[in-house]
């Protein structure tokens, strides 16, 4: 069911204002979504004045600076800081992306940071992705082959290998799935762009022998065909991949097989 408005317990209130204490003249206002499960209060937006003279270039650097110097209570996920692990996926300036690869110079005006959209919030900028992980598990993301090749590599031609380009690079950061309105409204049943791209990655792999069963499994009014080519996924992907195209490829395979 499409519910445009946020439920009552999710309405956002105005939060604290942290004034700059460094005396810097190069300040930027950073608005951050906060919610603490231990207080029973509603979510709020805290505003921080950040000294940009002593801040490296990415949005994650701002968050680190706030956590280290202004407010240690803020919670967010991060690990590699190089756009490889996908931990710091969040909504910045109205668009999903990785905080570690998003330069704050690209954002005009105040910097607004929210968790990934339409997820149950665990704390502050951390959303609950367990549904997505379960869906990922459901497409059985591993190679299925009858070959018992313990001593030799399972080879594929250069051409077949090239089919995986633009798919294997996915880091499962969930930027695409949580940008998709279809996934917002039908997230329990629709698999979403991230999982469907992964499904396609195994469908198209020449070494996999389970293609027919994989296609059959995904060919479902809700699981697959809730994709209406809104293309928010492709717009959001921080790795420049194209989940919309992968989904269309699955649809095409089903229509032509």
């Amino acid at each position, binding site marked *: 069911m499409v519910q445009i408005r946020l439920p009552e317990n999710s309405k956002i209130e105005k939060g604290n204002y942290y004034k700059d204490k460094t005396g810097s003249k190069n300040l930027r206002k950073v608005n951050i979504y906060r919610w603490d499960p231990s207080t029973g209060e509603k979510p709020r937006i805290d505003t921080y004045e950040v000294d940009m003279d002593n801040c490296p270039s990415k949005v994650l650097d701002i968050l680190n600076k706030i956590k280290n110097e202004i407010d240690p209570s803020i919670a967010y996920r991060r690990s590699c800081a190089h756009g490889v692990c996908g931990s710091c996926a969040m909504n910045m300036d109205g668009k999903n992306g990785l905080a570690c690869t998003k330069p704050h110079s690209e954002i005009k005006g105040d910097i607004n940071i*929210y968790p990934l959209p339409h997820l149950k919030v665990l704390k502050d900028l951390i959303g609950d992705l367990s549904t997505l992980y379960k869906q990922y598990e459901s497409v059985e993301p591993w190679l299925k082959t009858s070959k018992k090749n313990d001593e030799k590599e399972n080879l594929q031609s250069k051409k077949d290998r090239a089919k995986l380009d633009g798919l294997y690079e996915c880091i499962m950061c969930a930027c695409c799935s949580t940008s998709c309105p279809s996934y917002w409204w039908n997230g329990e049943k629709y698999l979403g762009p991230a999982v469907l791209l992964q499904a396609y990655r195994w469908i198209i792999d020449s070494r996999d022998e389970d293609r027919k069963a994989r296609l059959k499994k995904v060919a479902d009014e809700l699981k697959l065909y809730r994709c209406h080519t809104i*293309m928010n996924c492709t*717009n959001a992907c921080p790795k420049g991949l*194209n989940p919309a195209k992968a989904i269309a490829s699955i649809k095409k395979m089903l229509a032509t097989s």
Partner: protein
Amino acid sequence: MKNDNPLSPHIQIYNWHISSLVSISHRITGIINFASLTLICFWVSYLVLGKDNYELIFIFLNSFIGKFLILAIVWSFSFQILSEIRHLFWDYGIGFELKTANITGSLVIVGSFTLTLIIYILGKNFLI
């Protein structure tokens, strides 16, 4: 177990892109077209019912509201047709690159108004 954690904001904070704008408009114009077919059915029925009845709908459609309504319906159909052509290419697997999709999306928006204008001019100058 019921999860009472808040839901993170979604449509309230997410930026609109050309592609998402065209997508939602495609749906809305689809609904408008469906409804406007009813109007067209009324028009045809009144034609069958005779001259006096036809006069009635003639006066309504020639009023300002009527003309606006017709233009709106023409635009709605124009948009739907162009957007549907875009979807047909997508079904062939063509036009998914971000740049291409943005260009075709803009073409649909601009084209829908252009097509409306062309139909308006044709109707006004040549068909009556």
